């Protein structure tokens, strides 16, 4: 297998965007190609991550449309759909294609245009990936699964609402330093939890989860250019290597899992990624976790091996995951503040790590970052991908 490097990345601002999906994908793609110093003749293939343009935008065949708009014809192009983990899945496909020797340089772009529909429709669209007979027909949504999961986890490990709010406060603070974030606004513990006004400022969504425990619905796109490491020497920026990758799946209906609290796929994906990289969680200086819900940042930080199971909330209390902590988590603001255009998220996580490892993250730069980790969580943990990235 050949070593694979990331030589370019770029993204659009996340949030409510006027542009249509293809325009967003183009904006991110062109930014990443420019960053990589590539022109259209040197892109061997394209993978596009998108979860739901067929439903949300009545647009199918997204990759075919995009290569035409970008003048990348006749480059091979595929759309990759793996729910909210589509972004990482598309990167995986590019990684395998380059590692195998088939292609030398590949463009990966993930994007979603979710605000084209109402919030109800967007919620229902995301819920369509739940188990049809066992979950969806009852009115299950992703927040409702997260709410039931959070109640169990909190009862078992003594996690309080305040811990969940700490994730939100931290990630909003980071997001306020990220010009690409959907929500660039810090919030206070008083405003979202402690003051009487919090019942309105931060209303319940799926108890015990409240509005600030859930990511917003966003539009946006992110892109990276992957290249065979041996051919990455001429790139304008120092290459960041994909040192490790892992993926695992789990039982579709959450209630059918032996222990519904055990996110086996997160553990499996992280373990495989660390093994391939020949690194362990202690070697990581920055992590981007899939905090679609605040509880998930806590649990993923445990299942990935950064903290013992049931101790993730203690690390939060100690400030270990803040920008200036021992292991900064979600310096970008995470899904919570950067936003969650589902197809874009996995690519945006990798983009953030590349910026962090290159030292280009501006006000939210983590110090001394050599190795980064990210986790892209599909379904409610039924299809999870993880990457370990390292700078030279």
């Amino acid at each position, binding site marked *: 297998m050949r070593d694979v490097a990331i030589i370019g990345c770029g993204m659009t*601002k996340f*949030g*409510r*965007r*006027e542009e249509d999906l293809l325009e967003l994908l183009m904006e991110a793609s062109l930014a990443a190609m420019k960053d990589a110093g590539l022109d259209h003749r040197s892109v061997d293939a394209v993978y596009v991550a998108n979860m739901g343009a067929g439903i949300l935008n009545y647009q199918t065949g997204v990759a075919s449309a995009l290569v035409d708009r970008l003048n990348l014809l006749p480059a091979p192009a595929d759309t990759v759909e793996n729910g909210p983990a589509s972004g990482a899945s598309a990167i995986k496909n590019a990684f395998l294609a380059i590692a195998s020797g088939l292609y030398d340089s590949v463009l990966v772009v993930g994007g979603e245009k979710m605000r084209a529909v*109402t919030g109800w429709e967007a919620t229902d669209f995301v819920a369509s990936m739940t188990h049809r007979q066992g979950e969806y027909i009852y009115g299950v949504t992703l927040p409702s699964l997260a709410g039931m999961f959070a109640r169990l986890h909190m009862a078992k490990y003594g996690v309080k609402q305040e811990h969940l709010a700490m994730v939100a406060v931290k990630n909003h603070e980071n997001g306020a330093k990220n010009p690409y974030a959907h*929500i660039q*606004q*810090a*919030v*206070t513990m*008083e*405003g*979202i939890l402690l*003051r*009487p*006004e*919090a*019942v*309105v*400022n*931060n*209303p319940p969504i799926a108890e015990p989860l409240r509005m*600030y425990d859930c990511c917003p619905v966003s539009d946006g796109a992110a892109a990276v250019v992957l290249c065979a490491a041996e051919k990455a020497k001429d790139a304008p920026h120092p290459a960041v290597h994909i040192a490790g990758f892992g993926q695992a799946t789990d039982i579709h209906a959450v209630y059918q899992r032996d222990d519904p609290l055990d996110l086996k796929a997160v553990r499996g994906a992280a373990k495989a990624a660390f093994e391939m990289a020949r690194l362990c969680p202690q070697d990581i200086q920055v992590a981007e976790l899939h905090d679609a819900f605040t509880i998930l940042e806590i649990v993923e930080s445990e299942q990935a091996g950064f903290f013992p199971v049931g101790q993730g909330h203690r690390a939060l209390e100690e400030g270990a995951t803040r920008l200036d902590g021992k292991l900064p988590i979600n310096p970008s603001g995470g899904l919570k503040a950067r936003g969650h255009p589902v197809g874009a998220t996995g690519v945006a996580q990798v983009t953030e790590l590349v910026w962090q490892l290159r030292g280009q993250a501006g006000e939210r730069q983590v110090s001394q970052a050599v190795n980064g980790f990210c986790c892209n969580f599909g379904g409610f943990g039924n299809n999870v991908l993880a990457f370990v990235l390292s700078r030279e």
Partner: protein
Amino acid sequence: MADLEGILRPPERQLPPYPPKSIYLATGEQMVVRPAVREETSMLLEAIAPLLYVERDFYDIVAARTFAELLGWKRYRVKDEYCLVGLIDGQLVGLVNGRTLSSKVGISYHTLALRRGLRVGAHLFASKMEYHIEILKQKYVYITAESPIGFRRWMLEYDLIQRPDIPHELGGVDVWTLTPELYHAAKDRLVVGERPVPAPLLKTAETITIPEEAQLVQQVTGRAKKRSS
């Protein structure tokens, strides 16, 4: 002429004033909610005007109707109208208006949030219901929604009663009503704020300032600011 104006101008009643309150927002900013006075309508109209052309989330409809209602108040053509404003450091972040139909019945006009994502609209709508039920002691408030956001926020969150038999002022869709019973059932989760407002904070809300037009449209649409290269 003076006599004709007397005919055209609805008789004015002195409504009991809405006592100002302060609301601590998620960001830690304090929003003061207080009644606007007629002399402030010109400034409010100026603030709303740029929204007349914002189609997103039906801002155009709501802004146009609110503009007409406030203009009617300014020029003495609406009976017993009031307007509550939400101010952060004196800057207008939202407004709500309405009027009384009789001593027992109030009409809720419109809710305009000029800053979004902070639940300003929810807080101001709740203040308006508080005014009708707790201050004016009315038995019914007539409410309609003209946007999906409004429908979810008012009709569902307050469990309002649909009244197709009551014609709406604007010839719009069905009227829904809030009663004191429904209001008190919802109050704990929807109506917040502190009184009295400390004098220094109240002072910041004495004079209304309005956001610049470009800033306002950006706040309301979430459209990215144009990059100044």
